[in-house]
């Protein structure tokens, strides 16, 4: 199982140029690529990792440059999963991208990467991508050649120009950062077409409009660290709102200041992940957060803002005392950081009020830093513009429509009737890579490269250019849109001279030539600026009647799913399988109700319910969530696709079907919280596809916390430390847990003092190290990026697709049928415990509850309960402290899992790794992503977290080849690497030069279930809570 491939040389960072054989136009790229793979033999080791099968390995006869079999190359590029423009280092092996990692030098993400960024490679290898260009013939899309496709496009463009219809054309592009939008607009202009719409259904336009008005930039830097108090006005800055990774990095850094950390308050109707990470929740009724902001402004400045705190409290349905004390806190805690979010019709107005609050509190320039801001949202068009375009289409005024990446047929509210309007356009062109709802309506499909196959650039922060380069040859017969545009332009003598050979050359010429490009590619970063796109045309917003005026008993609170976003993540099984950080639901759309409301309506969890609004209705199972106002129904976006591939289709429901067109007058943002709804119990009942067992800790002390005050007084014990284990009494240098001397150390003779290789003094040095991990719960936000990173690194199968259950007479069918049986395979999971004394399914509404989020993975116990019970030594203890699982030896008694108190062992119930089975988790070409250093587990064996043993061995081998010692913190595990909170630290606990040893010595450190004497190698650091300062002062 370990990766014993000799690592030669450090991980290389560079460009894959020269590695890819040139290819002729119109050939089937996939086969060509497979041929290359075939000779390396890597592909065969991937698909055939069963102990029984024997495969031949044939080395390269002539090796491509930069390619050493078994050694990864890393290419710096830019993430295109959201507009933030995080830097990536993409690990490639034998010409295939296998993992996306954050670029440590990048100013936006500093080496971290969120779950969506990680899942980019599943977009690259998505089995449902367009294989090549398609043309609609006789009503259906049929494959065509690039020549013919480009010719068709040129003809249509010429027709449009000649008929004068060109000016009415519409180009909707997925909003992205960089020069491409400007390039696109130039090209459109040269073709006589109007500028494109840079559409992002998730963009927080209200906040952006206010920022532009107040600071002149779309997105200032939010400096959490400088703040003493953070107040979120429904801004879900940890849920994908805005720029996830930099916000989370800053938030975690701030929380890591422990007793000096800011107190965090969340105002909003639903306690999102941001809300759960806040110290207090003010559950303002939907649509009233603006009143709260106004009242606070009034209270702080003494100005008349039309509403007093008492009135605002009354409107918002919260206690006046809570607002009073917040106002008092705002007055005293300076600087503070107030963040306006929300997706109501008055989001921009509210954001302006909050900006004013920030100004009067002196936060501008201190915690809100406009001049260090991010450029992600520069040039984003309003959602109103897309709605207006649809109206034009419906009126028959659009002769030619283009769409690239964006999927407005799924992401616009039902009354827009986008699909209907779009179909009225005589000729529709899609540049999208996936057969989504919009592009399946198109007449011509010119599939774009995936971001990891493309050239490009981004300017995420002013003055820094992040480059985007292909990390591998294209998987399919796709072509970069920019190259298609250039080819079209080249076909016309009038425009041909303006363009270089391809987009790469265009990028190179912009930044100073090929040499400059080649010099910058290894880091992926350079000084410079992207070409500025034209400012989007302002479009008149269309108000939607108002929230208060709409009919219905309950407020409908739609929100963007943290993992799936507006729905673009739904075709990636990792993101479908990733339990929502708050609801812990996967593969399913649920209607969130407060238990109190559900009780009133006679609805039990899992019962189906129907929501009706003036726009439509939706039926889905009910999930009971205590972090929701009882007068509110919440629903996440992202699912309910009717197209978009096998993983997205038929999974869940789309909340956009319920929403009216209701746009913020100032920003043109489509409001997600814009209507009331009625709800009634429907026929039927579903099992919830959830990973949640019990939602509270039952006093078991798994996720522990201290208050800031306790910490300040040096008090680090909590109520759970009544049962003390012996771990602390048996010290070894660097770790409070000893090296295992129980399991195999005595080598069969209990009287012998000879520990063999398990003796740290043994000449082999095998036991010299003790791998350990610390997880700082003060930093962890529960975002679950680590979970997806683990899936990516360790070839963990996703098991939730509807076909992954039993074939014959299944007793449970449909999506997530394996997960309803608790068979998810996540080696690392995020537990979300509510600190309440009753089951969270049966409580009255009380906004004052605490949530503890804790990543749980194999604890690599020094005295592991799983080891002695395995009858065949399939699990044993390595001398360097790892609890090792030998897949080949495992016969599948599952006793180890029974005996594991942490329940972190996962069994292969089906042949998820076997290509000839319906349960296969990696249908071609998803299996190209599989990490060749990690075995794909066969049916019937147990698996679990290995502490990324392949990374440990790779680093050790590299050090050995270079005839040196391992450097402290030289490498880390996939979860620690991805963590955007920097909560996870991995290293050698026996060597105090590693930073993990300092964390282990922290006063907050504890072992989970220490009383069981398992001597875990994973040490948690207690969370730090910040109760109200008033109470703290009293105590």
């Amino acid at each position, binding site marked *: 199982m370990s990766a014993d491939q000799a690592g030669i040389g450090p991980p290389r960072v560079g460009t894959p140029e020269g590695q890819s054989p040139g290819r002729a136009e119109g050939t089937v790229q996939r086969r060509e690529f497979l041929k290359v793979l075939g000779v390396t033999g890597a592909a065969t080791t991937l698909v055939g990792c069963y102990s029984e099968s024997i495969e031949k390995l044939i080395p390269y006869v002539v090796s491509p440059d930069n390619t050493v079999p078994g050694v990864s190359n890393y290419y710096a590029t830019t993430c295109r999963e959201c507009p933030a423009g995080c830097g990536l280092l993409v690990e490639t092996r034998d010409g295939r991208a296998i993992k996306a990692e954050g670029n440590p030098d990048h100013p936006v993400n500093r080496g971290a990467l969120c779950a969506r960024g990680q899942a980019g490679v599943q977009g690259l290898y998505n089995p449902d991508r367009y294989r090549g260009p398609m043309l609609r013939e006789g009503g259906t899309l049929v494959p065509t050649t690039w020549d013919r496709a480009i010719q068709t496009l040129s003809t249509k463009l010429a027709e449009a120009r000649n008929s004068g219809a060109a000016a009415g054309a519409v180009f909707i592009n997925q909003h992205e950062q960089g020069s491409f939008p400007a390039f696109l607009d130039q090209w459109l202009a040269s073709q006589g077409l109007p500028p494109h719409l840079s559409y992002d259904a998730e963009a927080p336009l209200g906040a952006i409009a206010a920022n532009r008005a107040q600071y002149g930039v779309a997105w200032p830097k939010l400096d959490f660290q400088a703040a003493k108090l953070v107040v979120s006005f429904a801004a879900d800055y940890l849920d994908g709102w805005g720029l996830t990774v930099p916000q989370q990095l800053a938030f975690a850094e701030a929380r890591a200041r422990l007793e000096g950390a800011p107190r965090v308050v969340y105002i909003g109707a639903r306690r999102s992940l941001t809300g759960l990470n806040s110290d207090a929740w003010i559950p303002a009724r939907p649509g009233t957060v603006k009143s709260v902001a106004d009242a606070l402004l009034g209270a702080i400045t003494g100005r008349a803002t039309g509403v007093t705190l008492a009135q605002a409290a009354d409107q918002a349905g919260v206690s006046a005392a809570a607002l009073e004390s917040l106002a008092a806190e705002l007055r005293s805690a300076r600087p503070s950081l107030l963040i306006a979010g929300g997706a109501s019709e008055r989001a921009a107005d509210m954001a302006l009020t909050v900006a004013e609050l920030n100004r009067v509190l002196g936060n501008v320039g201190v915690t809100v830093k406009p001049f260090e801001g991010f450029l992600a949202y520069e040039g984003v068009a309003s959602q109103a513009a897309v709605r207006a375009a649809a109206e034009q289409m419906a009126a028959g005024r659009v002769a030619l429509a283009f769409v690239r990446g964006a999927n407005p047929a799924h992401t616009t509210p039902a009354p827009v009737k986008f699909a209907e309007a779009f179909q009225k356009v005589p000729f529709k062109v899609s540049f999208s890579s996936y057969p989504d709802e919009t592009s399946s309506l198109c007449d011509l499909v010119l599939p774009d490269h995936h971001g990891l196959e493309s050239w490009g650039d981004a300017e995420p922060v002013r003055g820094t250019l992040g480059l985007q380069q292909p990390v591998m040859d294209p998987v399919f017969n796709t072509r970069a849109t920019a190259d298609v545009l250039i080819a079209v332009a080249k076909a016309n003598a009038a425009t041909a001279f303006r363009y270089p050979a391809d987009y790469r050359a265009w990028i190179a010429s912009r930044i100073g030539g090929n040499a400059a490009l080649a010099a910058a590619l290894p880091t992926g970063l350079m000084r410079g600026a992207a070409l500025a796109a034209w400012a989007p045309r302002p479009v008149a917003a269309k108000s939607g009647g108002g929230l208060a005026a709409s009919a219905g008993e309950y407020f409908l609170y739609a929100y963007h799913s943290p993992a799936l976003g507006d729905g673009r993540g739904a075709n990636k099984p990792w993101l479908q399988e990733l339990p929502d950080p708050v609801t812990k639901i996967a593969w399913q759309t649920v209607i969130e109700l407060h238990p109190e409301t559900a009780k009133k309506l006679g609805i039990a969890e899992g019962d189906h319910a129907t929501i009706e609004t003036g726009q439509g209705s939706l039926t889905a199972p009910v999930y009971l969530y205590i972090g929701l106002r009882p007068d509110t129904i919440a629903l996440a976006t992202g699912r309910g696709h009717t197209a978009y591939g096998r993983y997205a289709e038929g999974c869940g429901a789309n909340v956009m079907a319920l929403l009216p067109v209701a746009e913020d007058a100032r920003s043109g943002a489509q409001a997600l919280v814009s209507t009331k709804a009625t709800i009634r119990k429907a026929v039927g009942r579903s099992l919830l596809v959830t990973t949640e*067992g019990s939602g509270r800790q*039952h006093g078991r002390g798994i996720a522990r916390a201290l208050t800031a005050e306790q910490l300040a007084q040096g008090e680090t014990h909590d109520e759970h430390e009544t049962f003390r284990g012996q771990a602390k009494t048996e010290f070894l240098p660097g770790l409070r847990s000893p090296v295992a001397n129980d399991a195999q150390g005595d080598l069969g003779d209990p009287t012998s003092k000879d520990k063999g290789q398990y003796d740290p003094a043994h000449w082999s040095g095998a036991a010299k190290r003790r791998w350990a991990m610390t997880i700082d719960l003060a930093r962890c936000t529960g975002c679950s990026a680590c979970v997806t990173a683990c899936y990516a690194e360790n070839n963990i199968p996703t098991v939730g697709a509807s076909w992954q259950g039993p074939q014959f007479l299944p007793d449970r069918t449909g999506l997530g049928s394996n997960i309803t049986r608790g*068979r998810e395979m996540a080696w690392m999971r995020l537990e979300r415990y509510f600190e309440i004394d009753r089951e969270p399914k049966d409580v009255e509404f009380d906004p004052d509850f605490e949530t503890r989020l804790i990543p749980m993975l194999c604890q690599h116990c020094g005295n592991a309960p799983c080891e002695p019970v395995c*009858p*065949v030594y399939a699990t044993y203890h390595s001398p360097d402290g790892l609890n090792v699982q030998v897949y080949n030896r495992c016969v599948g008694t*599952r*006793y180890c899992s*029974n005996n594991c108190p942490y329940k972190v062992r996962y069994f292969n119930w089906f042949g998820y790794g076997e290509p000839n089975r319906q349960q296969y988790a990696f249908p071609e070409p998803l299996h190209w992503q599989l990490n060749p250093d990690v075995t794909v587990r066969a049916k*019937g064996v147990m698996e679990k977290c290995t502490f990324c043993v392949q990374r440990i061995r790779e680093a050790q081998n590299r050090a050995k080849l270079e005839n040196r010692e391992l450097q402290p913190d030289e490498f880390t595990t996939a979860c620690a690497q991805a963590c955007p909170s920097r909560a996870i630290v991995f290293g050698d606990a026996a060597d105090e030069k590693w930073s993990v040893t300092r964390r282990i010595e922290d006063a907050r450190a504890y072992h989970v279930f220490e009383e069981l004497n398992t001597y875990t190698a994973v040490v948690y650091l207690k969370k730090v809570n910040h109760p109200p300062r008033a109470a703290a002062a009293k105590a």
Partner: protein
Amino acid sequence: MATLAPPSPHDAPHRPNIAAAGQPLPAIRDYEQVDREILATLRPTKGWFALLLVAVACLGLGIAAWMYQIQQGLGVAGYNPPVMWGVYIITFVFWIGIGHAGTLISAILFLFRAGFRTTIYRCAEAMTVFAVMTAGLFPILHLGRPWKFFWLVPYPNWRFIWPQFKSPLVWDVFAISTYLTISATFLFIGLIPDIATLRDRERNPVKKRILSALSFGWRNSEREWRHFARAYLFLAAFSTPLVLSVHSVVSFDFAMSLVPGWHTTIFAPYFVAGAIFSGMGMVFTIIIPIRKFFRLEHYVTLNVMDAGAKLTLFTSLVVGCAYLVEFFIAWYGAVPVEQDYFWNRLFGQWWWAAWIMLTCNMILPLSLFSQRLRRNPAWLWILSLFINLGMWFERFVIIVPGLSHEYEPWQWSGYIPTWVDYSILLGSFGWFFMWFLLFIKNLPVVAITEVKEIVPPKVRAGHRHGGGH
């Protein structure tokens, strides 16, 4: 043993079923009758064929389900992690437990000279062998990769890879294989004189040859009888500790682990008592129909039933006591995880299973305090079915609620078996009863030799020697 007044000679023909002092089998007049009546049971009947067909059909279903499970993976069974052990391990413990009463009756009661065992011991011992054969399948059946089961056996190999001797599962391998070997040998040794009886009456030359070989050329000599008695005694003595040790080892599968509700020192005696209790249940389930349909009421007398029922009642009380001690220790031990588990077992998620168990194993057997019911075969048979059910649920209650409600609340779960689990469970009954049905029509279900030994001397005197004697 018998507490009734000796029957008057006038009553005797009407109450062949009730023993008198010094006359355990009042309706048996001579050896010839013993031979005739017992050998008559070996004639196959239509009902027997029908039952055999049902058993084989159940077995076929089980085999089909297992093949499907091997092909697809264990996911087709109802496992719901962390409930990683389910119906298969429950059924394994169930069958292993069944076997214990057989050994108790055949070996321990033999050593204690408990006369009531004589007529039922053969049946019980056969039940033991077949139950262990059935039980032995399950640890293999529940493996993720059953084709690798031999890795649990310490066999020499050039890589010097041995099993983990600390693992109770390896102890299981030894315990079960030892138990199967010893009990099969014991059954066989006891059969030798009876096989010789069959051989003497067999006309089919092929069968006769086979029976000759199986009887080791038994000649009915003094020396042979002496050796037979020695071997029988020796094996009885050898089997006796196994009654205690095998199920103790099985209980270690649970007791050696950390799982709340499993990790307890009471498990070994508790399991042994439970095993004997469940085995008595199965003995009644089997012996009562045999007694009726083979017309052996005057062999398996009501006194035998009564004595067996008393043993059942006693073990039921022991088991009930163990249940109460478990609850007490959970409370007294003050480990919150343990207390939580017991609460959940009894009043939470699994209350129905726990109350099935308590009702069948603790409450219903209390009826056996009534002598009338002890001597009522119909009631005993119905009760025995409840005991079987209750003891299956006892293992369910130990295994499933423990695993589903462990240390990590986030991983608490439920468990619902699928058709594959049920088919394999049914298949195990098919397998057991197939062997048993084949046994009862091929070999005497009542030990001819031993019955003849307890026929009173005066009856014996009027008898001319023949057959095996």
